[in-house]
């Protein structure tokens, strides 16, 4: 069995599972945010259910429109808060103690290797980096899971992606996943699991693995999963709040397809509007003047990402025509950025530095684009209207390229400075 099949079988109480099989699986953690959980909460209440399956196995994170953007968002956030209090949900994270869900939960040790996690948010696939199975579902699935602790799943086929070599300077996890999506397309892994392997893994720190798993959904995948190794172990041993299980793929596991990537051959990638699959290598971008740069999100809002952006920005000033906004993903990262002097680097360079929030990533607030404006963002989606006006444009890149672009006033890399 593949990594995904093994974890699913274990959670369905079965010896083995086959791709295509429908299973009812036990969930280790179910997640909701301020956009998706109010619907789920309403459903739980409507069914007259007074108790969730496990008060410690539900995470509620108000991160999309918080700190509350407007009255409507405040009402949504209150639905979550009231529910959390009334139902005794242990893992509710208030503004000031919160973070973007997909960075917060693993960092808090609430997701551990071997887990099966569902979340009413498409980027729940992020935790595959920890050798866990995790996937995005809808609010109704979340409601069902909060009540029963179970979810129905179709066992996906797996695609094996073998990484080799070492990336060059300024090539990061983001470039690996953008490259893959560019190769296979936005539905290239539709309904399937992406499983990583190969000696190239040794060059991928946890932060990069989270970025890579995070964008599995941008290839249409159900999940993106990494094998457990020393890098996973170091992270899990430091953070895990529960005992974890190490799962390994069988030697005779069956894969629907296999692709190889030479990390050493990659250039930084930029995804052009309006699909993440519209990738180009940085040297082929041409002259694209920009109005805004956003560094943050569940894709690239980790401390490693801020460090990378700062390495580029240190001693430099942001271009007159550009607004740069930085969103550390969690309070812990915010504090760390302060301690390391990163916050000072950003502010001295002329960037705005925000409290953790999803903010402009989904065009919610805190950096919305006007008609015709162009932004470089370290986020994961560049759909029409994603960051504001339907005629604005979002280009996706890694944090170093985003920072360099902020200085240049156009899309470009650190080597051009």
């Amino acid at each position, binding site marked *: 069995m593949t990594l995904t099949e093994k974890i699913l079988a274990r959670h369905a109480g079965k010896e083995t599972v086959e791709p295509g099989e429908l299973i009812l699986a036990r969930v280790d953690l179910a997640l909701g945010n301020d956009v998706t959980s109010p619907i789920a909460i309403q459903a739980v209440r409507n069914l007259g259910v007074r108790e969730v399956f496990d008060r410690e196995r539900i995470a509620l994170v108000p991160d999309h429109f918080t700190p509350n953007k407007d009255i409507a968002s405040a009402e949504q956030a209150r639905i979550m808060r009231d529910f959390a209090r009334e139902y005794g949900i242990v893992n509710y994270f208030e503004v000031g103690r919160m973070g973007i869900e997909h960075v917060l939960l693993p960092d808090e040790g609430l997701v551990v290797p071997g887990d099966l996690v569902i979340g009413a948010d498409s980027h729940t696939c992020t935790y595959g980096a920890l050798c866990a199975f995790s996937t995005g579902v809808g609010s109704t699935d979340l*409601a069902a899971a909060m009540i029963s602790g179970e979810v129905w799943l179709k066992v996906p086929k797996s695609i094996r992606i073998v990484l080799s070599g070492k990336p060059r300077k300024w090539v990061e996890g983001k470039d690996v996943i953008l490259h893959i999506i560019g190769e296979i397309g936005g539905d290239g892994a539709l309904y399937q699991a992406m499983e990583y392997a190969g000696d190239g893994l040794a060059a991928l720190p946890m932060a990069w693995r989270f970025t890579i798993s995070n964008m599995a959904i941008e290839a249409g995948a159900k999940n993106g999963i990494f094998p457990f190794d020393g890098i996973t172990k170091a992270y899990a041993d430091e953070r895990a709040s529960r005992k974890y299980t190490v799962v390994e793929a069988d030697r005779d596991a069956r894969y629907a397809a296999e692709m190889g990537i030479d990390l050493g051959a990659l250039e930084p990638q930029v995804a052009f509007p309006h699909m993440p699959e519209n990738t180009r290598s940085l040297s082929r971008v041409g002259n694209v003047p920009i109005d805004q740069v956003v560094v943050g999100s569940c894709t690239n809002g980790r401390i490693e990402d801020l460090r990378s952006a700062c390495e580029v920005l240190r001693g430099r000033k942001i271009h007159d025509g550009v607004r740069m906004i930085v969103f550390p993903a969690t309070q812990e990262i915010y504090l760390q950025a302060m301690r390391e002097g990163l916050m000072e680097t950003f502010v001295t360079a002329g960037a705005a530095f925000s409290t953790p929030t999803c903010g402009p990533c989904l065009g919610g607030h805190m950096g919305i684009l006007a008609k015709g404006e162009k932004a470089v963002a370290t986020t994961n989606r560049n759909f*029409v209207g994603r960051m504001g006006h339907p005629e604005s444009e979002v280009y996706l890149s890694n944090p170093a390229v985003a920072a360099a672009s902020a200085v240049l006033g156009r899309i470009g890399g650190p080597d051009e400075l």
Partner: protein
Amino acid sequence: MALKGRAWKFGNDVDTDVIIPARYLNTSNPAELARHCMEDIDKEYAAKVSTGDFLVAGKNFGCGSSREHAPIAIKASGASAVIARSFARIFYRNAFNMGLPIFEVPQAIDEIDAGDVLVLDMRQGMLRNETKGRQYAIAAVPPFMQELVAAGGLLNYMASRRKGT
């Protein structure tokens, strides 16, 4: 039960930000969501769609976020079903969980033009394009999914199972 209505035609990769832009996600009121359904690619849709109409699209319909607001908005807009070459996976499960019927009928898509009158018979597994005089077989829905639909969605299915145990 047969569904009948006109086709609203869309392209490939219609994403959830287009189905219902995130700027409206601070509500989950179906009627309010329906008012903005598809507005970033088709300003007319929400105002002009008639009850029973079909959304017809290319590959990967519903890609993007997990927001159930997307199938809710479509259902509340009056559309009876979505027919596409393929669906993004979370949209696929959300639609079933919400009771919005969706069908992968790849062979029919290219031959359907906007405004064509379609009849979809779930029980007989048949899609008919009355305007073009063409007929297509629809792949069977897996038994578990049929149970979900028959129960009226996941929550009702669960409620009945809970009573049973």
